[in-house]
């Protein structure tokens, strides 16, 4: 059974998620603050950490950054009420492998956790939209074409996700395997984390559309 750890400063939300997920996952622990979370995660070594973005004391960003320094094999799924672009991009670039909003349905959340546990990336429709937007302004100044550009296929996969289709449906619609969809999304995640292009950061701060 996949082991998980929950980090959220809202106790009510935390207990709600705990109840929803306790049937499908082994909930190793939870924490409501940044320092407690870092200690708890290091001690419990869960497969996946569900981490809130906005918390006092540095927020989810510093949890991810601190834990990945010592335990690079722990995966993070960001879970937040905010889908402001700068939050999403910052969490992904810090090392989170997915980003979902708190309005996600319980089943979809459980699927997302399994996907992250398996080493894949999880993109919500909004996140897919952000990436398409950030990589769309075709400024020819690209330091690394491999990292700074999406392939047509990756773009098509992201478009399908942005339209609300699940990975399986995307696979069907594009006549490719689910594994191939996962590979494309993981590759986009990698570009998102590694690309140095200026547009990415500028876009995230300038375009504050929710």
């Amino acid at each position: 059974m996949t082991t998980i750890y929950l980090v959220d400063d809202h106790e009510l939300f935390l207990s709600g998620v705990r109840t929803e997920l306790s049937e499908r996952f082994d909930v190793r622990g939870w924490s409501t603050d940044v320092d407690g979370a870092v200690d708890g995660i290091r001690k419990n070594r869960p497969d996946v950490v569900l981490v809130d973005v906005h918390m006092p004391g540095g927020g989810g960003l510093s949890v991810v950054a601190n834990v990945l320094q010592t335990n690079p094999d722990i995966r993070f799924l960001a879970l937040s009420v905010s889908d402001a672009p700068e939050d999403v991009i910052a969490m992904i670039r810090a090392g989170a492998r997915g980003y979902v909003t708190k309005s996600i349905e319980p089943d979809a959340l459980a699927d997302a956790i399994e996907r992250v546990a398996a080493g894949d990336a999880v993109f919500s429709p909004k996140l897919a939209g952000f990436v398409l937007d950030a990589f769309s302004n075709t400024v020819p100044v690209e330091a690394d074409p491999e990292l700074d550009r999406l392939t047509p296929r990756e773009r098509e996969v992201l478009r399908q996700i942005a339209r609300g289709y699940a990975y399986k449906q995307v696979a069907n619609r594009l006549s490719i395997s689910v594994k191939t969809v996962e590979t494309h999304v993981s590759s986009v995640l990698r570009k998102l984390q590694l690309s140095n292009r200026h547009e990415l950061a500028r876009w995230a701060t300038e375009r504050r559309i929710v």
Partner: protein
Amino acid sequence: MNTQDESLLNVSSERFQVLRGRLTRSTGDRIVAGLAGGTAARLGIPTVFVRAAFVALTLAGGFGVLCYVVGWLTTPDERQYGSMIVADRPATTSQEVGLSLGFLALLVILEAVGLWFGPIVWPAALFIFGAAMVWDRSSAESRDRMSRFARPTGDDSSRSRAQVIVGVALMAVGIVVVLASLDSFQALGPVAIAVLLTAAGFMLLFGPWILGLFEDLTEERRARIRSEERADMAAHLHDSVLQTLALIQRSDDPQRMTTLARAQERDLRAWLFEPATTADGGTVGEAVSAAAAKIEADFNVPVEVVVVGDRIIDDATGPLVASAAEAMANAAEHSGARTVSVYVECSKDAAEAWVTDQGSGFDVDGVPEQRRGISESIVARMARSGGEASVVSRPGEGTEIHLRSESR
């Protein structure tokens, strides 16, 4: 997990380390391009020493200017990483000593290779670093108490007093050596030298204090703006969120509560995150989001809108927005889907929208007269404006309506 994914993860975490340690140009602490500020933050030493180093290296045949220009060209602006930058720790004493020795070695090498403006360089370097030490200590003190200058040797720690003494001593040695080695200075006469020295001393002692006054003024103005913003926010929360919470407490109908909560969430998000000023006439993205909000309230079905690129509404995109709204309403009312997804993409050549639901679907060429009528009206509307629309649906597999209008 497979090895490919594992290596992917390792790469990403390594990369993160690199980003943390990466040299960037500071945006807050800058005089020219922020290179000294960024370097100082990276090394964990006060910026004034890095600035002193650049000045001293400039005396060495202009090497400092060269270093600065090259550094400027090769380092990114720190804004590029936004909140990724983690503050570096201050340097330890041994690191400070190491840096100083390294710098001395660099000067010796430069002298050896002949990048040198003559005998003035060594005393000038001494003077610059002495001044930097005094300045650094003074500005650190002025931060907590401006009146400290009235009694400079009052309750300083021994380290800061030692720093001031060493700094002044270095300056004095530098001045003496300069005076002794340069004949031209003697021509200036003792009065001019006295004036120069007094002015320099005055600047060193009171410069940080004058700067501090300016900073305090700016800080005060910032605080005032912040408190105004807070009052503004309190007023808005009172009018919206608190009212909605009161309504929810009085409501027995779960459906109504959800609707209220969704509507309030949307409203709050718009207020928090959307830019205050919008272009005349609005954009396609804004109009589609507004239509989605209305449909969500009317039919109690969440409508998720994703917008990529955006554009001002014109003759071509107006019908696209109206058709998208109609398609959303249609999906919300008839499909039985839990959510409706809307994806809008505006590029240079065209604006496109996809309205997708994963509800009951229908046979496009077949029966339900009512739905066919609606999809036909959408197709007709798009055709009239020179655009196109297509409907893909099968019973049990949901519906996707694609709208497209070319740019003119």
